[in-house]
Each structure stands twice: as structure tokens, then as C-alpha cells.
């Protein structure tokens, strides 16, 4: 498998606090790549630095040969790197379909003039975009909620909608920040099936997750962060037996 994302010595500090220190790893095309670590290890900060919400201080980030270092979030999305948020960030007063259509912003082109004149291009684009959004809603399992306002969806459905919105940009790499948080076992299973089938379609996934069983079961490889530094990288088996990882988790969950 070829490399898709190359992260090289990325660092980020806030004031005197080092949130990330020289983090390097590689995500290969077509794999599910886990990012784990104790609370406050810098996992979400890493996602934010990768997707342009924070400016990293140093380092290099390349996606399929394109540098994403210090690019704007929308440029990073356009390059093919989409994400979801740990604390679900939907457009609450927009319908599910509209949320997904916004996610397709970079793959559509109609501007003010096209909208005013209702050009043929604009009409086709709108129609296609709406249909595509509906497909994605079906795909993540909330196809019946097309016109429901995002804020009126259940918690689990909101998580799915966020995934659909991210998928709307047809990314090469999708980063999910604790997608299973707050889900019941049934919802978790559905989520796992969704991730596996997305991978089968050729999508590469990155995953921050606290549910160790889920991560160990689904990820091909993992990187483990502790205090903003990488302490291990490899397959679940290797990581599980790494003494540094066991120490970081106080020999608790991971070994179990």
C-alpha cells in the first residue's frame, strides 16, 4: 500500500504549554488508522493542526504529495482531507440535507450570478447536489430525515449526519474524532459496519476513539500519543504489548 498522509515532526504549543511535540507518522492508502492516548494526550489538537483549525508551529504535512502545512481549512478539505468533530458541530438550524449540501461546497461552483440567473449549470448542479446529499443520508442510515433540522436529530443521528457532511466533499482521507462517543452498542456496531464499508470503497480513515475494543478491532495500525508526544506506532498487536503504552494507560484498559 502507498502512503497517503505523511506527518513529519509537527509541533504546536499554546503559550508555555506544549500540546504536540515532533509528532511524525504515516497513514497508508486504504487503511483505518487509529489515534489513541489518555485524555489530554493531544489527539484532538493533532486533528486540528492537521486540518488547519490550528496553525502548527513547525513540521510538514503532506497528503498525496500536496503540502497541507499551514493551509486554510477549506483548502485542506479541497485537497481531500475531511473531518468530524468530537463535540458534534452541525449547522443546527439547517436541515439534514442542507448540512450535507454545505459539505459539498468545494465540489460545486455556482456563484452569485449563476444563482440569480438560474443558469442551466446552476440548476443541474443544485439538483445533483441535492440528490447526492440524499444518497449520503441514505448511506449513513438517516435517509428518512432529509428535511429535519439538524438540532432535532437524535444524538446518534447527528453523529451520522456529521459523517455524511464530511463525505459530501468526496475526501481521500476522513478523520473521525470520537465518532462512537455516547453511542449505544447497536449504534456502535452500525458505525463499525459503516467505517468498514467506506474503507472497502477505497476511503482511508483516521480515527480518534476511546473505546479500545472498537479501535483495536477495526484499526489496521495505530499511533499512540501521550503528553503530546508519539510513544508508539504500529499494528494493534504491537501497540498493545508496548511497555510505554501500557505504562501510559497504567497497565489498565489496553492490556485487557
Amino acid at each position: 500500500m502507498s502512503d497517503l498522509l505523511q506527518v513529519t515532526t509537527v509541533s504546536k504549543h499554546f503559550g508555555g504549554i506544549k500540546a504536540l511535540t515532533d509528532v511524525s507518522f504515516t497513514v497508508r492508502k486504504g487503511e483505518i488508522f487509529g489515534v489513541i492516548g489518555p485524555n489530554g494526550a493531544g489527539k484532538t489538537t493533532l486533528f486540528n493542526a492537521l486540518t488547519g483549525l490550528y496553525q502548527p508551529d513547525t513540521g510538514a504535512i503532506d497528503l498525496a504529495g500536496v503540502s497541507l502545512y499551514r493551509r486554510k481549512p477549506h483548502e485542506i478539505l479541497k485537497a481531500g482531507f475531511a473531518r468530524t468533530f468530537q463535540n458534534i458541530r452541525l449547522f443546527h438550524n439547517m436541515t439534514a440535507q442542507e448540512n450535507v449540501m454545505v459539505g459539498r461546497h468545494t465540489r460545486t461552483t455556482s456563484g452569485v450570478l449563476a444563482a440569480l440567473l438560474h443558469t442551466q449549470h446552476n440548476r443541474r448542479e443544485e439538483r445533483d447536489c441535492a440528490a447526492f446529499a440524499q444518497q449520503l443520508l441514505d448511506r449513513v442510515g438517516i435517509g428518512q430525515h432529509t428535511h429535519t433540522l439538524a438540532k432535532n436529530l437524535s444524538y446518534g443521528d447527528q453523529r451520522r449526519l456529521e459523517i455524511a457532511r464530511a463525505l459530501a466533499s468526496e475526501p481521500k482521507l476522513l478523520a473521525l474524532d470520537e465518532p462512537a462517543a455516547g453511542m449505544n452498542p447497536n449504534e456502535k456496531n452500525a458505525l463499525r459496519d459503516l467505517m468498514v464499508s467506506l474503507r472497502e470503497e477505497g476511503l482511508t480513515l483516521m480515527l480518534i476513539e476511546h473505546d479500545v475494543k472498537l479501535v483495536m478491532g477495526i484499526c489496521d495500525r495505530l499511533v499512540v500519543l501521550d503528553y503530546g508526544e508519539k510513544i508508539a506506532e504500529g499494528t494493534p498487536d504491537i501497540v498493545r504489548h508496548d511497555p510505554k503504552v501500557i505504562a501510559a494507560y497504567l497497565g489498565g484498559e489496553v492490556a485487557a
Partner: protein
Amino acid sequence: MDIFAQQLVNGLVLGSVYALVALGYTLVYGILELINFAHGETTMMGSMIALAVIGALFGVAPDLPGILIVLAGLLVAIPACMLLGYSIERVAYRPLRHAPRLAPLITAIGMSIVLQNVAMLIWGKQYIAFPTTLLPQGRHDVFGASITDVQIAILVLTVTIMAGLVTLVNRTRLGRAMRATAQAPAVAQLMGVNVNRVISATFVIGAALAAIAGVMVSANYGQAHYYMGFLLGLKAFSAAVLGGIGNLAGAMLGGLLLGVIEALGAGYIGDLTGGFLGSNYQDIFAFLVLILVLTLKPSGLLGSRSVERA
């Protein structure tokens, strides 16, 4: 006479007034995230009420010491404004606490219009003179600037009030409740804080400061007017934002800074632009500085930089 020193003094006096009014904005904003647009009008009401009392008392008992008459005006204006501040919150803001964010802004504007026009109906459209002869007329030379007794009184009073307010917020039970409510109203309520009472108290304290500022400004400039609260409120709010809204020290710093910048700007604008712009551009300074500061530091001088969590 040294122009720089003189304008500095004038600026500090003006800035003291701004700071006191700005504190009212910032206290309320800190707790409710609401721009109390009617606060400028509360200040105006403070001026007007005090002037009415002073005028009446002077008419009845002209032999009383002037300072006592002015003090009486102040002592009536303060509770009157406190009551006004309390009523404004109850009528215009409390019912809308969970409404869309802009709704209370519009009621605030409505209240502001109401107060202006009430004042106009009661006191008329003309400027009302402050009988400045009641106050000490002394002038002192300090570093080349001429400073009046009234100005000294304003500066001393402002410093005293600020110190008192800081003590209140940091050292008392009420202050602790206010800080808790500002941080997390729901949690404060669970911990037994009577949030409604705290909010009322905040408005009342802000209104008392506004009343004092209103009397100060009319004593310093010798007049009051039903429309004076508008621009004063605007400048004071700008001062609060400049310092970082919600932050007490920020409001004080912002107010003083704005006053000084305005006074120096008015004094030097002609020289700075080679005579191109005159002192009629004085009001521009407040806004230019504000825009400049916020462009460089989006949450104000002392505002905590809120790192948004992703």
C-alpha cells in the same frame, strides 16, 4: 500653559466618566452577554434628576452651602437610577433571557428611545445649565496644566469608586455570586446562587455608577441635555470593548485610554495632519483606536483570548 499636560488632564477627567459608564456595560455584559443599550440613557437620567433636585433645592434654600446642594442632587440621583436600572432589567431583559440573541438588543434600543423622550417631555429640548457657582472654583497649576477643584474631585471620586467596586467583586459574597454567575449561570444556580437577584444587583450597581458619572459629566461641562446619554453611552461602550468587554480592569483602562486619546487627538489633530483635519474630527479618534486595537487584538486589550475548542 503646556498643551500636552492640559489635554492629558482633560483626557483623564473625561476618561474617568467613560470608565464609570463603561463599568456598567461590562458588568452586565460579563453576566448576561447583553449590550445594555439603555445604559447611556441611565447616565443621562442621573444628570437630569440631580440637576432637577439641585435647581429645586437652590430655589428653596439658596443659603445652604453649594456643595451640600450638589451632594443632595447626587444622593437623590443614585437611588433613582438604581431603581431605573432594576426596572429596565425586569421589564425589557428578563422576559427575553432565553429569546434569540438580538431580541433583547432591540428592547434595549426601545428602552433607550423611551427614556430619551421621557426626559425630553419632562425637561424640554434645551440644554440645562449646571449651576457651577455652587461648586468650589479653585484652579491649580500642576506640571503646566490648569486643573480645577471639580476635576480633582472627579479623579479622586473615580479612583475611590473603582477601588470599592473591585473590593466588592473580589471580596464579598455578592461579588463571588456575580463571578460564579458570569462563569456558569446554571451551575451557580445549582450551588444555591439566586441568579435573578445577582443579575438585578448587577444592573443596580451599574446604574449607580452611571448616576455618579452623569453628575460628574454635567458638573465638569456645566450642562446637561436629554440626548447626552447617546454619544456618551456609545463612547463608554467602545471603551469597554477596547479594554476587553466583561473585564472590569479592561473597562477602567479602556475608559481612561479613550478619554486621553480623544483629548490629545483633539489637541493635536491639526498639527498631525498639517492643518488638513480640524478638531471637528475629534470623535473619529475614539473609533479609529477602537478599530485598530480590535483588528490587532480581536478580544480587546485585556480580554482573555478565548481559544475556541474544536
